[in-house]
């Protein structure tokens, strides 16, 4: 059990650090920006990653990547996060679409779609959830009807990050309306978005990270079915595994930052020298560090050839708790319980508190994470 960088890791970390220092020189503090400005910087940042060849960091060399492993990606993300780098705007392309197409795509699909992700030309989004299918993803109803040469897709999707910037969608649709089991009959389509109607969803903190998408006779050619007709559920599980893996690389940083901000605020207000505060921060610190260490162990397991296990759900659950509690405590430390938004920094704190309410919902609800732990770690019978 060794948590230190190997010699090569250290060299890579230095290489990454040096590049980041240069590439971030003109990038302002993202926390201070409006959502629009943040998004513009995310796009610029994506371009810089692509230009420098970081976009395919952990993709195999034969697909244009650098062929490095999950640890290298973790090191890159960690160094970027330390420096407050923007979030790359085509994360779905780099982290989900690329790896899934590499895993399940035909040579032709790989040749058609991978270069656009590496070059930064094609942005992707993930069309899985539907208004009627949240935690119960397999109940999705978007229908794909066979037509000459392809499929005609109709339906709606929801909670789609970045849909307004994407031109391609990882789309789950039902190609068999009456399958023998509910996971059957789903296919995974690589869908062009020119006939999608995208409507931003305003969140309770006024941000518009997510979208609703309406599909009206979207045509997807047969050649863009990924992994074969009716095999969509299996392919989707691959994407979800990549999503969990890539989340875990970032989660701990957000948890640490939430605790940092809380402590900084308390320092500023002279409210951090009593035992009750130490007690609360101590509890947060334990869980935040547990998420960091758990992520390192997860990366090490993937690196050793294993697949991250269901314990990843414990990290997601701990993480959500840390950020929610730290952000709530920060609001409560604020003058007037944080409800006067024109107070110094109050609006941003309240926005973060509200944003964090979603952490027990997005990326698999808290209830879903606990079900995974119960069923797959403890072997308890299904409750649903």
């Amino acid at each position, binding site marked *: 059990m060794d948590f230190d960088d190997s010699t090569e890791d250290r060299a890579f970390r230095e290489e990454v650090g040096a590049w980041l220092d240069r590439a971030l020189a003109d990038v302002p503090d993202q926390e201070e920006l409006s959502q629009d400005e943040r998004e513009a910087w995310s796009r610029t940042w994506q371009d810089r990653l692509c230009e420098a060849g970081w976009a395919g960091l952990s993709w195999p060399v034969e697909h244009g990547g650098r062929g490095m492993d999950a640890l290298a990606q973790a090191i890159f993300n960690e160094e970027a996060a330390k420096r407050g780098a923007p979030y790359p705007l085509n994360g779905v392309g780099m982290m989900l679409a690329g790896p899934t197409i590499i895993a399940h795509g035909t040579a032709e699909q790989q040749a058609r779609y991978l270069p656009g992700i590496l070059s930064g030309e094609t942005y992707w989004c993930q069309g899985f*959830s539907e208004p*009627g*299918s*949240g*935690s*119960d993803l397999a*109940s999705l109803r978007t229908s794909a009807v066979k037509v000459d040469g392809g499929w005609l897709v109709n339906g709606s999707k*929801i*909670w789609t990050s970045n849909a307004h910037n994407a031109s391609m969608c990882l789309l789950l649709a039902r190609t068999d309306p009456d399958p023998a089991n509910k996971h059957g009959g789903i296919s995974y389509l690589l869908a062009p978005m020119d006939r999608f109607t995208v409507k931003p*969803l*305003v*969140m*309770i903190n*006024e941000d518009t990270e997510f979208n609703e998408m309406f599909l009206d006779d979207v045509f997807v050619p047969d050649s863009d079915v990924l992994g074969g007709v009716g095999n969509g559920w299996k392919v989707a599980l691959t994407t979800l595994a990549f999503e969990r893996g890539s989340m875990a690389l970032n989660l701990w940083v957000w948890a640490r930052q939430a605790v940092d901000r809380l402590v900084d605020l308390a320092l500023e207000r002279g409210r951090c020298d009593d035992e009750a505060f130490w007690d609360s921060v101590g509890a947060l610190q334990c869980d935040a560090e547990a998420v960091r260490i758990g992520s390192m162990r997860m990366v090490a397991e993937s690196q050793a050839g294993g697949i991250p296990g269901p314990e990843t759900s414990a990290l997601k659950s701990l993480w959500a708790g840390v950020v929610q509690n730290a952000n709530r405590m920060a*609001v*409560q430390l604020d*003058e*007037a*319980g*944080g*409800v*006067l*938004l*024109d107070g110094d920094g109050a*609006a941003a704190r*309240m926005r973060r508190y*509200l944003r964090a*309410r*979603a952490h*027990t*919902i*997005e990326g698999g*609800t*808290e*209830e879903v994470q*606990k079900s995974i732990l119960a069923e797959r770690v403890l072997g308890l019978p299904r*409750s*649903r």
Partner: protein
Amino acid sequence: MHATFTRDQQDIAATVRAMVGDEKTGARAALDEGWSAPSCDAALLEGFSGLGVAESAGGPGSSLVDLLVAVEALGASLVPSRFAAHAAAIQLLAGSGEVPEAALEGQQVLTGAVVVPGAAGWAPTAGGTTTRTLVAHAESADAFVVAGTDGVRLLDRASVEVRQRESFDPAVPLADVTPTADGELAGAGEAGLQRATLVAAAELSGVAQGAIDLAAEYARNRHQFGRPIGSFQAVAFQLAEAVAVRKAAWDLSLYAAWAVDNARPDAAIQVHAAKAAAGKAAVFAAERCIQVHGGMGITREADPHLFLRRALVLDASYGTGAWHRRRTGALRVADRRASA
């Protein structure tokens, strides 16, 4: 003992509910367009301002519980009426026995000013020219009741400076209010503060109830995995816990109101306990309401966040929930120390 609602109290609740209808539209509209008086505002002010005011103070001799029952019903609907703020201000005065007739008739609209910026609890004095914060509906108020533990002052608009603040719940506009001059105090401040604080506790109890009702309705109707999500214990038990916490808050509020009205020796601790419990219940219920709504819960277009906004604003008002909880504990310790 008749620890049940009187027929009158049941009527009050029913009447208020009928008047406000489903006014969540008002709370939502305020988000986009700022506060405006709901259609029921004037009628509430005119019809109910005497609730909780004794005959000695010029009122109809109604109990504080009567008022709480009305405010709780308002809270559940989130109706953005000035009534609760006005009624709380009247209660600040009622402690001293001098409520202007125009206020009792709902013609002169009051609001209370009790928290000094940077402090968590009630102001120590009503005198001086120290600014008060978290003053609700100040922009449209006719007069201001500045209160501290040593008494109250009733100030007209000309005697204060009002600085509008940005409220997390635009349906409850908040302001800083600064008296421009010192002045004479009336009455016993503490009794008034207790009475007014219970008005906030009652509204919070209502907010908690409204959030629970909304979440339960969603849980009965939303299906996943072929079943209503309310049939999953993980969903159902969050709301069951909210029910227990909310019942605690409301029972404490009712008892505290009775204790204050009857000058019981435990009135002070009961008021603190009620406000602490009510803030906790409302915030908890609103957060659970968001969680049970899943993805919809974090959208602006769904209603759960409206409950959270109101809950947090009221939890901060008339002393934060955390302050009241600590006061509850401190009084309990003091009581036990005295009896040892």
